[in-house]
């Protein structure tokens, strides 16, 4: 067995014997994917609505009937203005609609509990569309790429962006730093093994682990989550591999800076996890951020990766549409690798 092979074997043995970590690492992506795909959605269901009607007309009756039948609403009933306020204040209903006829025309007002702004906005939009549908000009809405507006489509790229940073950057840096702490890194460094072999011996096993996770996540996305399968999966795979390499390089860089496992964990947690969740466009659209933050998001790898994944996975466009993302990611990988190797060798 060559030195390189035996180093990799050692790493794999270490990983496998740390059974808990491996389970967590393999289970977390699946759980996150299923959780975000099914349980958590940014859509709003079961908006509890009451109506206040000054004078019933055919029109108001029709609208109320539409509330009753619409699956997004739970129609609580027609109440007086006073009752409506109490109900809203007590949190028994989420929204109220009042109808008033003025000069023969029906006017309406929507009152919504905005303690959760996200929900309030969505509910308002639903209410508007239910009230206005049926009269005047019909609006035909055609949502491309995600006809059912399922949030899973939005989250899959985001979760992939997050998972690979965690697995690769966090686990690699922690495992290298733990070797520094236990002193085995020193044993390797005084041995005739070339430093680049030591580094590769650390990175390759985590790369393999990432590939397993990628397979797992893609299988789930294309089957359970129902993302349409096409040949663009090949592009998804190689762009993800590029991202994994970047994350591994980041892990290596962290390991050269951090001297204890805890600090490695903190650095990768604070430097990557939080920005990835908040600033990568995974949950909050980058376009809505203040300009300064938008510039800042440019240095977050996940932002580019997630954007590329949306184009390749959801829109399924050819690779020509992600050239910017791919070149930014490649550039970052190169810079981080050079920095990490320089720092790794600088200790002499």
């Amino acid at each position, binding site marked *: 067995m060559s030195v390189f092979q035996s180093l990799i074997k050692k790493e794999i043995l270490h990983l496998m014997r740390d059974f808990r970590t491996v389970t967590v690492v393999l289970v977390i992506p699946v759980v996150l994917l299923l959780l975000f795909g099914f349980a958590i959605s940014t859509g709003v269901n079961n908006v509890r609505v009451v109506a206040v009607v000054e004078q019933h007309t055919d029109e108001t009756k029709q609208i109320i009937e539409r509330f009753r039948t619409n699956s997004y609403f739970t129609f609580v009933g027609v109440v007086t203005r006073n009752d409506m306020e109490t109900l809203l204040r007590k949190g028994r209903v989420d929204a109220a609609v009042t109808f008033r006829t003025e000069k023969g025309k029906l006017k309406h007002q929507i009152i919504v509990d905005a303690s959760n702004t996200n929900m309030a906005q969505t509910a308002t939009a639903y209410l508007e569309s239910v009230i206005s549908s049926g009269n005047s000009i019909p609006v035909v809405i055609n949502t491309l790429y995600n006809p059912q507006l399922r949030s899973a489509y939005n989250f899959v790229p985001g979760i992939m962006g997050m998972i690979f940073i965690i697995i690769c950057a966090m686990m690699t840096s922690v495992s290298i730093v733990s070797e520094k702490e236990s002193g085995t890194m020193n044993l390797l460094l*005084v041995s005739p093994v070339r430093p680049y072999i030591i580094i590769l011996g650390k990175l390759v096993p985590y790369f393999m682990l990432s590939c397993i996770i990628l397979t797992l996540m893609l299988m789930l996305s294309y089957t359970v989550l129902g993302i349409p399968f096409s040949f663009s999966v090949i592009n998804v795979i190689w762009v993800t591999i590029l991202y994994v390499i970047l994350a591994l390089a980041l892990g290596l860089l962290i390991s050269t800076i951090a001297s204890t496992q805890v600090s490695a964990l903190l650095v990768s947690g604070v430097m990557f996890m939080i920005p990835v969740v908040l600033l990568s466009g995974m949950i909050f659209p980058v376009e809505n951020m203040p300009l300064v933050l938008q510039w800042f998001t440019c240095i977050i790898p996940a932002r580019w990766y997630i954007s590329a994944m949306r184009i390749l996975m959801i829109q399924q466009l050819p690779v020509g549409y992600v050239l910017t993302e791919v070149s930014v990611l490649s550039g970052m990988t190169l810079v981080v690798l050079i920095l990490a190797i320089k720092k790794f060798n600088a200790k002499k």
Partner: protein
Amino acid sequence: MDKEIVISVKDLTKKFGNFIAVDHITIQVSRGEIFGFLGANGAGKTTAMRILCGLSFPTSGTGTVAGYDIIRQAEEIKRHIGYMSQKFSLYEELTVWENLNLFATIYGMSAKDIKKKAGAVFEALGMENMRNVLVKEIPLGWKQKLAFTVATLHSPDIVFLDEPTGGVDPFTRRKFWEMIYRASSEGMTVFVTTHYLDEAEYCNRVSIMVDGHIKALDSPTGLKQRYHAETMDEVFRIVARGAKRWD
């Protein structure tokens, strides 16, 4: 001296900015010798040892280890030395055999050689029934023996032992020194740092480092005579008196 010289350094100096960790040290160690490298924490022992092991380069000075130049042939040096760290560092999640096999492979031994030598060593140490036990589960004394075995299985010219007896009970320490003697009698040079001054008595020659300099270098008997001391402990206290770096 008629014996072959395996470590020879002259005016070795290492500076970190304004701090001079190692200040013009000159040592010669011959084959088969047990060389004690003493000094308080912070005296510069570790830095000097790192240079000798090819882990670090000197700011100035020259030298050879195992016949190779410490500046130009650091990689060659690594091939001909063994190193045991003060924490008996081994891979905790690997078994005794896996650790031995890994490091022997790293030092370029063939699978056949490893099997043959490891078998003999396990037998000599009485560790045969521990082959498949995870290192984290074996007692400290065994871990120490294993770490020494791992450092010497490839029969290096020189083995560097960095505080190889820290935290171990006196009986195990004496047993360990028997291993060192055996290695030395087989022609291996042993370069050892220690904090236990009674152990310094076991060395053929001892150097005492103070503030980056080598303040004293002789056989334990020679040192005791020169400083009119009864024990090495006394010698050390006289020599290290006035040290500025101490922690």
